[in-house]
């Protein structure tokens, strides 16, 4: 059986992170939309507010001389991954209908019932007319967004794309992870010049069917799939200096952890962060955006797995020679 692996590559020109201060509780208020965005953003879902703030930071991060949105609007795209960007809005709408009736709903907020409007607002804000896509795969949607953005850039359908993740879990959901905020990159096609402070992103997506893991053959196939993805991701480049595994406690998480540790055995230690079953799509993107990267041309490898079978592998590194 041939396991063919598609590696998508893009160049980060700017990154924006909007995250709650360390120690903030899940229901605690931490983001001042008026201070970060100005007037006119009050009725947006929090995840959308975070995303718009992250976009401003990412565009500023491109540098004072850069004009990251100089491309024609038709050559600018947006791809956003999320698992729960509008979960709190769903709950709030339900509560309003229950207490006051549907007539009390705000037409400003209601359209965001459809999750794609979060990215839609990003496109409207920055006149990104090329394409706009929202993906929602459990836990990996953020990296999936980076992967799809790189493929769209490689296909020539955009010169620049804003891609990343945003989350804002419903604070009343019993098993919601306290994951809130946004991480967004300004991406240009892979193979292009890397600006000072920029980085190269490489991504691979895999699927490990959970039922197959009950049998030895399924576990072997899963291990091979992850190892081949890791080989492809590092093809022609050095081994990673930092390895982070973000997985839930599930057979898929265990299988990916085993494969990753075995591949990394003589390469680098694996730092593992286990999450609840319903963690969002944000943390993997945050880890790819976090500074500093390993010194020199070192690579950070971030592997994400969800119990549903989705697996995303991504590296971030800064070439020794940049523009």
């Amino acid at each position, binding site marked *: *059986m*041939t396991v*063919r692996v598609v590696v998508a590559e893009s160049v980060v020109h700017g990154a924006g992170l909007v995250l709650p201060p360390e120690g903030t509780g899940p229901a605690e208020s931490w983001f001042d939309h008026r201070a970060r965005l100005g007037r006119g953003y009050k009725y947006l879902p929090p995840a959308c507010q975070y995303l718009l703030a992250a976009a401003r930071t990412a565009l500023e991060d491109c540098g004072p001389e850069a004009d990251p949105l100089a491309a024609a*609007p*038709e050559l600018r*795209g*947006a791809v956003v991954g999320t698992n*729960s960007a509008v*979960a709190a809005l*769903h*709950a709030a*709408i*339900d509560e309003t*209908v*229950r207490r006051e009736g*549907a007539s009390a*709903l705000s*037409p400003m907020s*209601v*359209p965001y*019932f*459809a999750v*794609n*409007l979060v*990215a*839609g*607002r990003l*496109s*409207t804000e*920055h*006149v990104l*007319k*090329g*394409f*706009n*896509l*929202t*993906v*929602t*795969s459990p836990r990996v*949607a953020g990296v*999936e967004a980076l992967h*799809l953005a790189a*493929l769209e850039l490689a*296909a020539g359908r955009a010169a620049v794309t804003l891609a990343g993740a945003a989350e804002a879990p419903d604070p*009343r*959901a*019993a*098993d*919601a992870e306290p994951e809130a905020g946004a991480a967004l990159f300004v991406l240009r096609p892979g193979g292009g010049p890397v600006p000072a402070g920029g980085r190269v992103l490489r991504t691979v*997506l895999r*699927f*490990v*069917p959970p*039922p197959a893991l009950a049998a030895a053959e399924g576990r072997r196939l899963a291990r091979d*799939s992850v190892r081949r993805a890791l080989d492809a991701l590092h093809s022609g480049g050095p081994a990673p200096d930092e390895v982070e595994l973000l997985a839930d406690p599930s057979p898929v998480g265990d299988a990916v952890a085993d494969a990753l540790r075995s591949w990394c055995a003589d390469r680098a230690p694996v730092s593992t962060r286990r999450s609840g079953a*319903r963690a969002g799509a944000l943390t993997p993107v945050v880890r790819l955006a976090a500074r500093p990267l390993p010194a020199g041309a070192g690579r950070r490898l971030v592997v994400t797995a969800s119990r*549903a*079978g*989705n697996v995303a592998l991504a590296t971030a590194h800064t070439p020794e020679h940049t523009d």
Partner: protein
Amino acid sequence: MAAMAAQTGPARVVVTGLGVLTPIGTTVAGFWDAAVRGVVGTGPLTRPDAADFPAALAGEVAGFDAPRAGGERSLALARAAAAAAAADAGIHRWTGDPYRAGVCLGTLLGSRAGLEPAVTGFHRAADAHGAPYPGPRAAPDLTDAVARELGFLGPGLAVATACASGNSALAHAADTIRAGRADVMIAGGVDELSSGIMMMFSSLRSLAPDFLRPFDRDRAGLIVSEGAAALVLESYEHARRRGAHVHAELAGWASASDAHHMTAPHPQGSGARRSMLRALKSAGISPDRVDHVSAHGTGTPSNDRVEAQALREVFGPRTPAVTSLKGALGHTQGAASAIEAVACVLALRDGVVPPTANLVELDPECDVDVVRGRAREMPVRVAVNNAFGFGGNTACTVFTRPSTAGSAR
């Protein structure tokens, strides 16, 4: 299989399997027969589990006995459509390279709709006791469930572009094949009826009081429906090697963003126009070769007016034969453009364009060649499928007959 020209360059994408579940039919044959006869599938809600729906009218997939609770209905609709499409393509259990076969489904709400009763119940309990609720389930279960059932391990993606989701899924699946990342993809869309989506359209004053009347002078909004459709897409070479019957070629596709307003289309239909032109360019087909357009045609005043304007700008004053199946189906949300893609393939096959049900008097502001009254028999060599959604998402697909596919590119 139909004769096709030898492949050169990037992989050509062909359609080898179809599956639909709609308010007017739950088999491809039944659906198409009803569509051509202009049968209307919307009406008073009859499902016993719909007491909390804030609308009296809907399009239900009658006789499809899957529960709403637990998110099972969307899953069941998606599985059934995919299974039908796979069977039509001669795929029962995948024996090829599993990593070369994938799934891409579009959905507006995913499985969320089916969890409403439980979520509402928990909210009420929380009001009374301060207890938290388990939260909604994510949409991508749909894609994984279909992939697992068929034994596919390749690319899997759930896309959300509101009412354009079906076409977006087709576009991404086709991209995956054209770029050589997969040989076979099952692609389509699914959504079920939900209190939430009806509440959203009701709050925006977008629900019709009686019928969905695309392009009609008296159109007054849409009726929410449910459904699912799946198409088996393959590279032409792969289909040829396994001797599959080719229904049509998915010759071109494109998406764009209005970047204008959260719920209103761009007043000049710029995203719609750009999607159509890009999709035709991707197919290598000039607008004057298009015979039929399956319109988004939601029956809302602004959408139909803007779409008609965009059609005139792309095709000129003598537009192709335009129809909107939403008059018959209602608005099946994320499934709509996937169902309409199936209709495009069948229009190519049979040389017939279904009528736009419920259209009585064409709005002068929608001055395009809308098929009404009864189906129009005509040669259909190239069909364009439009889909436009909230948030400014637009996506178009272009289908051609398999026998003309070689020269179409």
